[in-house]
């Protein structure tokens, strides 16, 4: 059994499959990044060629940095993403704890109601949301986006996290209760650290759609001061002419912050997994 599982042939096959998938997944990113550094003519002539001395051209980045306030857009995207992530994880984990830990009437019903959001796209409510934001004077604020994204991310977060919370040892929580820890201490100090891998997973799944979203920034916060990076990049895409150098440069830059966030969470993820293995 264990011999065949560790046989070189199997190992090579597994790596071949994984490598192929990695290449397929990374290819578009690779094309975007290499072309961001090329002149417009080179992009169209040889889209797959690496930039060389002849085709190297920083014009895309120069345009991006000159045009509008790109640094501000970055900051906006970061604020919205990190803010929403914080609230999704906090409220999602708290709701999940209540659902998995306490027996009360309608527990299952509340759980189902919260999970329903996974199946109903929040965009169906765009008009109502816009009316709501107008009424409360939140149009063209980042708060509006954070609120909407928090609502969008919560159902999946509650669903995944409550599943994981059920697996946290009852004995541990009970030991805390006997030692006089408050329910908040039990939640923050005992339970949350044990479900860190699940939190990281939820964070990644929540973060990427928010960072990439064009819809809600366009509708709720299109003002210059609240534009997100995705919305900001749209100025280079016209109906008739598109400044490909600038679009590709903007996209390349936009990858960086998510990459950093992802690395942070994935390290947590791995740490969580190994901690579980050693127990």
């Amino acid at each position, binding site marked *: 059994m264990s011999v065949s599982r560790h046989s070189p042939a199997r190992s090579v096959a597994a790596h071949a499959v994984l490598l192929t998938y990695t290449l397929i997944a990374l290819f578009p990113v690779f094309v975007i990044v290499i072309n961001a550094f090329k002149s417009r003519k080179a992009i169209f002539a040889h889209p797959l060629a690496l930039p060389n001395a002849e085709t190297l051209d920083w014009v895309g980045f120069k345009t991006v940095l000159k045009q509008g306030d790109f640094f501000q857009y970055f900051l906006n995207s970061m604020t919205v993403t990190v803010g929403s992530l914080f609230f999704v994880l906090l409220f999602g984990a708290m709701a999940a704890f209540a659902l998995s830990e306490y027996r009360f009437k309608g527990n299952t019903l509340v759980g189902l109601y919260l999970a329903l959001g996974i199946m109903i796209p929040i965009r169906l409510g765009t008009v109502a949301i816009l009316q709501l934001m107008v009424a409360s004077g939140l149009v063209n604020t980042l708060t509006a986006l954070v609120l909407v994204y928090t609502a969008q991310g919560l159902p999946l977060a509650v669903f995944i996290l409550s599943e994981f919370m059920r697996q946290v040892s009852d004995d541990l929580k*009970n*030991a805390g209760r*006997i*030692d006089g820890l408050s329910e908040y201490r039990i939640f923050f100090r005992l339970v949350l*650290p044990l479900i860190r891998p699940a939190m990281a997973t939820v964070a990644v799944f929540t973060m990427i759609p928010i960072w990439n979203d064009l819809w809600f920034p366009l509708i709720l916060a299109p003002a210059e001061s609240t534009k997100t990076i995705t919305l900001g990049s749209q100025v280079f895409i016209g109906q008739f002419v598109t400044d490909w150098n600038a679009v590709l440069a903007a996209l390349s830059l936009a990858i960086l912050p998510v990459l950093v966030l992802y690395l942070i969470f994935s390290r947590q993820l791995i740490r969580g997994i190994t901690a579980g293995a050693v127990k």
Partner: protein
Amino acid sequence: MGNLTLSNITKNFGTVEVIKGVNLTVEDGEFCVFVGPSGCGKSTLLRIIAGLEDASGGDIKIDGVPVNNTPPSKREIAMVFQSYALYPHLTVRDNMGLGLKQAGSSAAQVAESVARASGMLSLDALLDRRPAELSGGQRQRVAIGRAIVRTPKLFLFDEPLSNLDAALRVNTRIEIARLHRELKATMVYVTHDQVEAMTLADKIVVLNAGRVEQVGRPMDLYNDPDNAFVAGFIGSPKMNFLKAQAMDGQGETVGVRPEHLAISRDAGVIAGRISHVEKLGSETLIYVRAEPHGLLTVRQFGEQDFVVDEAVYLTPDAPRAFRFDAGGLRMR
């Protein structure tokens, strides 16, 4: 001080009644063991005493004071769990001291209590480690130490030895017995293992399906069981139940412990055939198939030369046999 009184405790989970009216008194300094098959409600009863679960009905008093509405941390109890339940992010020292710290003791008091407990359990070398760096046996000793630090009125143990291997289980059992003698504290101990119950308890409470079957000292339960369930549960190997019909016709079953069945190749009351022999050195267990009783166990001292398929005769030690009626109740 620390005596415990349960009156008419019931517990329902939804429509399922798990504890069906338990009355019990545990005296100050007593070692009381709840024993019963898995799923009979031992842990639930213990959690009700701890306050981790609300009783659906009935009263719990500690030292005569009703504690039904007192949260666990205010009941002056300590609990040791099967899964150790140490705080993974704290060192052994902090694990042990947390309860006192939460109760508002000064740092010096906490340190002193931790030192005392760690001395009693020889944990001094481990104090700065985290639970992940300890073996199973060490973790359970820390969990016991954590209970001692709080100097509770009542110690509660929920199958503390179940996750340990056989050798460690014996050592830890002896350690718990020693602690009970030294601390003279009231302890309530839950186990499904009747050997643990017999060796540790001053008083055993046999539970079955949410009801108390019998309460008594270990030897009382062994020598004078009230019903067939207790007779079968206490004692290892298990008691043999013979069909009274095939004997003298009084009652429904006749209970005979394996050590009270004589075995002979020549003559006896029950004829049968050996189906298996287990030699343990100090004793030999002989399994005999005898219709209509089924498989009977005979326990003999030392090494015996019976072989499988041999025809043998068994004779119960009549004065030491127990007679039970159709409902399983003892006929005296």
